C-alpha cells in the first residue's frame, strides 16, 4: 500500500495556517499567549487587590476621626503584640494545633487500613466515602454539627441514654474546654473543625502510606522486629511527610476561618473574626490588614518547615 492512497485533507491555506505555523515553530510565544489571559486575571485583579489591602498594614488610623492616615508607620503592626491582640493570635494557633492533632489521630487508621489492607473494591469505596464529605457543602456540615451539639441535640441525648450525662456535665464544667453547652465551647469548635478538614488529612496520609515499600516492612519483620516496633520505626517515620502535608491544610484552613467560631464557639474572638469585625463595624482597615498578615506569615513558616520533611512530595 502506498502512502498516496491515504485520503488526507489538503493542508489548510491562509491566515490561520500561517498563524499556526508561527505558534508551532515558536513554542515560547505559544506559552506566553496561553498565559496572558489567566495571568491578567490572577496577577492583576487578584494579586493587585491583595497587595493594596495588605499594604495598608503600614498605615494607621486616626483615633479621633476614624480615618486612615496614609503615612508609613510600624505602629499598626506593633499593635498586634498588645496583650489583647496577641491573645487572639495565640488562641487561634492553639485551636489550629488541636484540630491538626485530632485530625491526624482520626485520619491515620482510616488511611492505614485503606493503604495496606483494603482490596481494590474496598479502596474505591473508602476513597468515595472520604471524597463525598470533602466536597459536600461547608455550611451544611457546620449546620449538622449545630444540630448534634445543641443542648437538646443528639449528643446530649445519647450521653443521657448511656448514663454519661454526668461525665458530659463534668467535661463542660472544666475550664478552657468547657462552657454552658457543647455548641458554645472550644470542645464543640475543635470537633466541628476536625470534622470539616478531616478528609484533607486522610488523603495525603494514605498517599504517603501507599508509597512505603512492602519489602521494607517484610525485611524489618524478618530481622526480628515485632509488629509494634516495625510500626514505630519504619512505617510511622515514612508516613510523617503525609501527616505534615495534611497538616498544611488543616492548620491553614482553621487559621483563616471565621464562620465556625461565629456559629459554634465562645465569645472570645479568633483571628478570622478579628479581621472581620475590624474591617466591618470597627472600620479599622490597617489593623485588619495587619491581622491578615498573621495567618500568611504563620503558614509561610509552616511551609518552609514542611518542605524540609519532604511533605510536598506527599501532596
Amino acid at each position, binding site marked *: 500500500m502506498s502512502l498516496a492512497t491515504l485520503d488526507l485533507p489538503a*493542508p*489548510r491555506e491562509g491566515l490561520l495556517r500561517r498563524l499556526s505555523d508561527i505558534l508551532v515553530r515558536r513554542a515560547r510565544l*505559544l506559552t506566553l499567549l496561553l498565559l496572558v489571559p489567566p495571568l491578567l486575571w*490572577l496577577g492583576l*485583579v487578584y494579586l493587585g487587590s491583595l497587595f*493594596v489591602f495588605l499594604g495598608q498594614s503600614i498605615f494607621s488610623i486616626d483615633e479621633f476621626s476614624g480615618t486612615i492616615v496614609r503615612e508609613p508607620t510600624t505602629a499598626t503592626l506593633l499593635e498586634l503584640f498588645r496583650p489583647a491582640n496577641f491573645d487572639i493570635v495565640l488562641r487561634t494557633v492553639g485551636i489550629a494545633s488541636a484540630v491538626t492533632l485530632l485530625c491526624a489521630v482520626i485520619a491515620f487508621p482510616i488511611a492505614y487500613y485503606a493503604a495496606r489492607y483494603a482490596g481494590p473494591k474496598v479502596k474505591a469505596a473508602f476513597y468515595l466515602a472520604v471524597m463525598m464529605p470533602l466536597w459536600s457543602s461547608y455550611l451544611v456540615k457546620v*449546620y449538622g454539627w449545630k*444540630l448534634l451539639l445543641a443542648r437538646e441535640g443528639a449528643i446530649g441525648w445519647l450521653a443521657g441514654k448511656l448514663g454519661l450525662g454526668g461525665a458530659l456535665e463534668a467535661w463542660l464544667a472544666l475550664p478552657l474546654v468547657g462552657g454552658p453547652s457543647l455548641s458554645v465551647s472550644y470542645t464543640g469548635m475543635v470537633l466541628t473543625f476536625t470534622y470539616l478538614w478531616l478528609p484533607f488529612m486522610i488523603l495525603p496520609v494514605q498517599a504517603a502510606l501507599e508509597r512505603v515499600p512492602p519489602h521494607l516492612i517484610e525485611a524489618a519483620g524478618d530481622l526480628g522486629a515485632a509488629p509494634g516496633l516495625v510500626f514505630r520505626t519504619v512505617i510511622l517515620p515514612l508516613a510523617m511527610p503525609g501527616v505534615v502535608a495534611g497538616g498544611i491544610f488543616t492548620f491553614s484552613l482553621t487559621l483563616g476561618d471565621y*464562620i465556625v467560631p461565629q456559629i459554634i464557639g465562645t465569645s472570645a474572638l479568633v483571628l478570622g473574626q478579628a479581621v472581620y469585625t475590624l474591617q466591618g463595624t470597627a472600620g479599622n482597615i490597617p489593623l485588619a490588614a495587619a491581622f491578615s498578615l498573621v495567618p500568611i506569615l504563620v503558614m509561610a513558616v509552616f511551609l518552609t518547615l514542611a518542605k524540609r520533611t519532604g511533605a510536598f512530595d506527599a501532596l
Partner: protein
Amino acid sequence: MTRAPLSLKIAAIGGLAFLHIPLLFILLYCFTTEEKSYAFPPPGFTLKWFGVVWGRADIWAAVGLSLKVASIATVLALILGTLAAGALARARFFGREPISLLFVLPIALPGIVTGIALRQAFGLMEIPFSLWTIVLGHATFCIVVVYNNAVARLRRLSPSLIEASMDLGADAFQTFRLVILPNIGTALLAGGMLAFALSFDEVIVTTFTAGQQSTLPIWMLSELIRPRQRPVTNVVAVLVILVTFLPILAAYYLTRHGEAVAGSGK
C-alpha cells in the same frame, strides 16, 4: 496479604462513620415536627416542610442567583484554567514556579483575606456590587480546580500523539480540536463540575462581594447565625447536599479511569 487487626478495622470504620453521621442527622431533621429547637429524638415526623420550601419565593431567588453565578464562574474557570494548564503542563521557563504558585494562591490563602481584598478593590474603583462582582471572586478560586485536573491529564498525554497529528498535516488548531480536546475532555468536565460545586457552595468570599444580594449559602449563613425558620433550613440543607452530591459523583466516575489515557502507555 495479611488480615487487618480488629482494632484497626474498628478505628477505620469509626472514622468513616464520624464523617457521615452528621449528614444523616440533617436528613432526619427535615422530617421533624419540632419547630423551635433541635430536640432529639424528633417528637414526630411530617413531610409538610418540603411543601413550605416549595412555596418560598426568597429561597428560589437565592437558588437562581447561586446557579447563575456558579455557571458563569465555571465557564470562566474552564477557559482560564485550561489555558494555564496548556502553558504550564510541559514548558520549562524562568518564572514557572512562581506562576504555578500564583494559581494555587486563591485557595491557599484564607478566604477572608481574598474577600476583603476584593471588596476593597471594588470600593476603590467604585464598582457597585452585582452578579459580576460575585462571579469575579468565585472564578478566582475555581481556576485552580480546573487547572489541577487539566494539568494532570495533559502531563499523561503522550507528546508523540501531537507530533503524529502534525506530521499528518494538521495545523495547531486542528490538533487541539481533534487530538488534545478529546483526550482531556473528561478531565475538563470533571474539573468543571468540581468548580461548579465549589462555587455553588462558597460563602466566605461571597459575604464580601455580594453586597445586599443573597446566594443560597448566604441565606443559609444568616439562618445559622440567627435561626428563625429551622424546619425550612433543614430542607434547604438537604437540597444543597443533593445539588452538590451529583456533580461530585459524576466527576469521580469521569476521572476514575484517568490512568488509561490514550498514548500514556508509550
